[in-house]
């Protein structure tokens, strides 16, 4: 009986197949049903395909302006709300004249009723021209279909092509209207294919080295990329292109010149690694830098590819030594605490093992918004016996998981955070982090610190008013006695006694 129907789902029994409890005896094929449409009327935590492409893939690019072809709402919601910081530096040595340009601006065609009736092509054209005029320093212009423009059928590729020539810069259309595909994952897919088809191979890098890599599926959430970048630099590996954290448009154009691709987020970006391998024969390896152990193993694997093991080992030894004391502290505090990871996808399998290995925490539940079969296979591999694996859980299931599996902490997104709090359970933001970066050696300490701070937030011991307590004064006087340092550090004993 690896599949279970939540009590709250008795009216929607189709949810049973999405809820699997790990049983070591099961064959590998047994995983939750996934990547299918959500039951209507659920409080799903999923987003739409537009969110997948702009929010996840392209929003991290630092030197392009985005024109959302939509009524005003999608443009508003599309404004840089992911935590994708960028540096102003471009590959040619220039600097973008606006701080965090990718987070600051968003453009939209602001479609009205008449556009819906007569079509929005003219407005799109005009808006892209205005984009080029308003932000003359951008390298390219990206434009996005949305539900409205998907339904009215505007030929955005045509406009993009025409204007690329007129403006003299790449204008790229992304056709992932909100309704396409069951989740934002569809948007990742569209983003990968569009960027590959339109860009990769179209430009050459200013210089290359024998140690050039593409770092794919790393978006620099809260500075994650910058942590890895530092490691690679030290080892002697050169990140030629990132896809797409803190990257420039041009970097994507010359991804075909790397010697190796690494795929960090394997849900959202394996597509382009495959395409590049297929077309340009550039091999890729899947990597994982969450937690010291994975980070060490994967750095070493990459280093090995380039014969740089010695450098890697030096770095790993040093970093491990640096973090060990704090790691010990957190382990002492967190050993045996239980958790539930509810991520977009891959963090379900990135996190359980390191949290167990380094902090002694037990994962009792995992769930994703948009993972596919391959991901669930990995998840299943990495969680322990009895852990529940849920695909696309909705709000009511969320309550039931808390009731039944009683996690000490939940790692999830902001939509879940506050309801968890209302039910008395701490919650750490895992899509965008609390106080990241979370990747790499020191990043894992940040994660541990945030988990520690959340579980040990004194508030959880004060949730309800207590009508009576033991005589606080008396108790504390007794207890305190032994704890107070007999002499203050800066004060002669005589003086202190005078006061006591």
């Amino acid at each position: 009986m690896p599949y279970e129907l939540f009590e709250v789902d008795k009216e929607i029994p189709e949810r049973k197949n999405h809820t699997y409890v790990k049983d070591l005896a099961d064959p590998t094929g047994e995983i939750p049903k996934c990547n299918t449409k959500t039951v209507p009327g659920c409080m799903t935590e999923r987003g739409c395909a537009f969110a997948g492409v702009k929010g996840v893939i392209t929003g991290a690019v630092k030197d392009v302006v985005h024109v959302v072809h939509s009524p005003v709402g999608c443009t508003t919601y599309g404004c840089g709300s992911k935590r994708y910081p960028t540096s102003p530096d471009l590959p040619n040595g220039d600097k973008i004249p606006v701080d965090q340009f990718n987070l600051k601006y968003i453009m939209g065609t602001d479609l009205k009723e008449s556009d819906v009736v007569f079509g929005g092509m003219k407005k799109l054209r005009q808006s892209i021209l205005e984009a080029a005029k308003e932000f003359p320093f951008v390298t390219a212009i990206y434009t996005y279909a949305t539900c409205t423009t998907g339904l009215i059928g505007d030929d955005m590729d045509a406009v993009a092509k025409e204007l690329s020539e007129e403006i003299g810069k790449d204008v790229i259309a992304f056709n992932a209207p909100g309704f396409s595909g069951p989740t934002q994952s569809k948007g990742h897919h569209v983003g990968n294919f569009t960027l590959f088809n339109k860009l990769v191979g179209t430009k050459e890098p200013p210089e290359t080295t024998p140690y050039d890599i593409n770092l794919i599926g790393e978006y620099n959430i809260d500075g994650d990329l910058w942590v890895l970048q530092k490691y690679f630099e030290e080892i002697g590996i050169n990140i030629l292109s990132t896809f797409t954290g803190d990257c420039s448009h041009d970097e994507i154009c010359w991804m075909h010149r790397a010697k190796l691709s690494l795929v960090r987020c394997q849900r959202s970006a394996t597509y382009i690694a495959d395409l590049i391998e297929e077309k340009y024969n550039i091999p890729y390896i899947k990597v994982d830098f969450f937690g010291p152990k994975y980070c060490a193993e994967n750095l070493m694997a990459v280093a090995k590819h380039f014969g740089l093991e010695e450098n890697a080992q030096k770095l790993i030894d040093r970093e491990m030594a640096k973090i060990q004391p704090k790691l010990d502290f957190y382990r002492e505090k967190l050993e045996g605490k239980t958790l539930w990871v509810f991520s977009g996808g891959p963090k379900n399998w990135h996190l359980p093992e390191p949290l167990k290995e380094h902090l002694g925490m037990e994962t009792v539940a995992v769930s994703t918004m948009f993972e596919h079969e391959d991901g669930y296979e990995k998840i299943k591999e990495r969680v322990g016996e009895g852990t529940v694996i849920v695909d696309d859980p909705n709000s009511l299931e969320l309550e039931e998981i808390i009731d039944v599996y009683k996690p000490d902490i939940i790692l999830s997104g902001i939509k879940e955070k506050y309801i968890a709090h209302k039910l008395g359970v701490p919650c750490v933001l895992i899509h965008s982090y609390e106080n990241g970066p979370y990747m790499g050696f020191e990043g894992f300490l940040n994660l541990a610190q945030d988990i520690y701070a959340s579980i040990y937030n004194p508030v959880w011991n004060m949730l309800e008013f207590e009508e009576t307590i033991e005589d606080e004064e008396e108790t504390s006087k007794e207890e305190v006695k032994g704890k107070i340092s007999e002499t203050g550090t800066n004060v002669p004993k005589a003086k202190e006694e005078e006061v006591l």
Partner: protein
Amino acid sequence: MSCANVMKRDRTAVINPLVTCQPMGAMYAVAGIRRGLPLVHGSQGCSTFVRYSFSRHFREPSEIAVTSLHEDAAVFGGRKNLISGIGNLAVRFKPSVIGAISTCSSEIIGDDMEGFIKIAKEELKQKIGEEKAEKIKIVPISTPSFVETHFKGYDNGINALVNNLAQDPEDSNEKVNIIPGIVNPGDIREIKHIMGLMGIDGIILTDISDPFDSPLRPSTTETRPFYPKGGTTLEEIEDSSNSLGTIALCGYAGSGALSLEKKYEVPAAVGPIPIGVKNTDNFLRNLKKFTDTEIPDSVLDERGLLIDSMADLASRYLFGRKVAIFGDPAISAGIARFVCELGMIPSVVCTGVENPEFVSEMKKVAKESDEPVDVMIGSDLRALEVKLEEEPVEMMIGHSDGRLFAKHLDIPLVRVGYPVYDRAGYHRVPIVGYNGSVNLIDRITNTVFDKYYADEHWKLQQ
């Protein structure tokens, strides 16, 4: 006395909008109902983006359902999604009201929401019996995303609720209906506080104050499903036709009030939002007019505390300072009038809407200003930025979306309204009423202190 220079955006594209699309406003309206659930008939982004936006502003859960429209619905229509969505929601959540909210997709597909809802109701009766099914009200709210903005969506939402739920009038309930507009929990509480001091019972249409700012008390929290404390009850909405009058605080949110006036002869007063002295005075006169209640000393003393603050602070620290105000049209116009009352100059007032109520309010305000007021309508943050690069002001007043612009311009930003996600507690501190205005003058003055007196700190020694 001065004049208003009304100017529209001179671009086709919008750059960093000051508005969003209609459905968000309707979700806001439905969220204010006790056990009320918004059901968005559209793509998942239409609910998720809004839940995200509500949660980061209020730091609270926000439960919004969606019918999850996909390619098949685009081709065959969303009938199945809406009907099964209503069914699942009704059975699993046992809500009092489901607000079925349309989107660009469902409007373009041409779904007959009213028809589908009828079918859904029938199916529901089959499933859970007539009595139980009757208790769950399903209200269709048409909010095409490509028409106007979320302010209109709010107006449409409230209007739909009133039109669908208010019952035929019986005896007067001696209450006053309040349509708050898209304001904060603290604002609604301040309105209730004023009415409490006057001894007037109110029906808030609708009341997000508790749902979006609710206690963490596991021992009393309703779960399975989770519902936050509070909100307007269905019975109150039904009873709204028996009230002495309706006051819509915001100019853009008057349709529900006018419907009640037209259908049930409940007199209506629409705007201006009670920010500052004159607007709050006006609100009190409306309350008095509807209820024939004298304004008690307790309220007038609170007024006196505002007056006292204005006398003590305005001429010395604020007089003549130029301000740019942006965001919500009602709140912006209210603040613009208040800053005139403080002797400041609302040099630029910028909003994403073009509604005539706003323009006419701003003309009135401009008359009270010592210098010309640039009124930017149908505009956006980028236009404001360009304007302020050319003609700087000493302070910006608006929501958090302006934070990077304020930073770039090196103009301090006084945060108000929705959304404010980069500061804590702002949803709880009112800016309406006399007390709210005191908060506002404090926030403005302290910003001046922080920004403009840091180097000459001795000027603040007394």
